[in-house]
């Protein structure tokens, strides 16, 4: 279940992974987008980190809502509204039912789908959120290996949403940067003890 503690730990870990891989994420985005995904995510998560340090939270949904607002207000680009909406929807679901991790992530996925209007196979972050939800629903657990597998599957997809779609065929052979950063988010959930 989600607690203030593990949610906080999760977001710390997500922040750390993104900071450590900021230029890698931007490089991935340079290849098929506009090269700012690392900068965007780092800027957004730095704000989350600041807010985590400044405030005391009474519930995990409060933590999630704060993170959503921070991401929405600082990230910019396509990833800001997508991650922001995902966490906002998760926060609502966690308020209803902090126990069911899978359902919470599914709520996040639905936020992304609603906001971005993508489906699977379009080479976006949806291509990791969706299989993560499915495998959690089926197996009640998630390994880092599975996460890596989902991320690496975006390599052979042709982008039809977002900036990479302008490249058409030429997007083949590259990882989707938003899928990679989403991979960090799920790995951080494991590190934070929310998932195992």
């Amino acid at each position, binding site marked *: 279940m989600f607690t203030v503690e593990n949610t906080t730990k999760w977001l710390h870990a997500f922040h750390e992974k993104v900071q450590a891989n900021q230029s890698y994420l931007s490089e991935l985005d340079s290849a098929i987008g506009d090269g700012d995904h690392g900068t965007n995510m780092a800027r957004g998560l730095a704000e989350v980190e600041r807010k985590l340090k400044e405030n005391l939270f009474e519930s995990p949904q409060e933590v999630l809502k704060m993170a959503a607002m921070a991401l929405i207000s600082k990230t910019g680009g396509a990833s800001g509204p997508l991650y922001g909406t995902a966490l906002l929807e998760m926060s609502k679901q966690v308020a209803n039912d902090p126990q069911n991790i899978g359902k919470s992530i599914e709520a996040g996925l639905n936020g992304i789908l609603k906001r971005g209007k993508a489906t699977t196979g379009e080479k976006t972050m949806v291509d990791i959120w969706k299989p993560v939800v499915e495998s959690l629903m089926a197996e009640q657990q998630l390994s880092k290996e599975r996460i890596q597998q989902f991320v690496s599957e975006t390599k052979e997809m042709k982008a039809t949403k977002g900036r990479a779609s302008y*490249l058409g065929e030429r997007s083949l052979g590259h990882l989707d940067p938003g899928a990679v950063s989403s991979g960090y988010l799920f790995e951080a959930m494991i590190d934070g003890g929310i998932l195992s």
Partner: protein
Amino acid sequence: MKKILNDPQNVLDEMLDGFVYANGHLVERVAGTGVIRRTYEDKGKVALVSGGGSGHEPSHAGFVGQGMLSAAVCGEVFTSPTPDQIFEGIKAADQGGGVLLIIKNYTGDVMNFEMAGEMAEAEGITVDHIIVNDDIAVEDSSFTAGRRGVAGTIIVHKIVGAAAEAGLSLQSLKVLGETVIENTKTIGVSILPATVPAVGKPGFELGDDEMEYGVGIHGEPGYRKEKLKSSKEIAEELILKLKEAFGWSKGDKYGVLVNGLGATPLMEQYVFMNDVANKLTEEGLNIQFKKVGSFMTSIDMAGVSLTLIKIVEEKWLDYWNHEVKTVDWM
């Protein structure tokens, strides 16, 4: 990277302060935000808010002022501004007559502006939007994010801006804007890529004698790379593409905009405009207004874009010629 800058992280902030310092008679910055609003007030009329990532100067802040934009929301370089910034822009612009958002068609921009619109509606401000997608280099199909918004955006600002000053309603402005957008098409070429300050190296690679047809204004790739052509040949290819897209007949009324992409000097833009003029004359088009200059740039990209607008209503000419008080349109 060779630029006259300080810390690349602070470009947006310093740039906006320098801009406002120089142009304080026309614009002001909403403190702590990336919003540039006009000092001119137009109570009761519809306010126009545009914006997007920075790096397209003088767009969009240079077109804020009487007769054009009410406010521009400036994001980080090549990165859409966030909903709360756009919301600040909406609040700063609103004169009680509703707010029309002019959005360039990029996934990020569309989502952020829409979220801001929802925030504003929640606070009782009437908001609507139009999405500019004039770049015909990209196929508009279900397999892309759709055509991009590029230099044609300037024409939308000008025409809809004049109409807003004339007192049209939010709904009429939306319809006008959408009709203008439908009839506005752009295509560009790049001969040197742009360098985002925070990245420090060019966004793509071009050989010493190569050019790329159909690039976007964020260094997105185009449809063909080839050996650098003469201005005349480039004009001919771009006009051919536009002709295919419009399907015009002799005598049709158009307006034309030659836009420099940032590092291309006016010398080349004028030479290119001359070739465009010759070709358009050959095509027998009736050109009713013309403009040349660096209006929608891509930082220090070298290249030009060509925009044509089919003039569907005579009124558009009045709007085009309507005097404005902005920093960069005269």
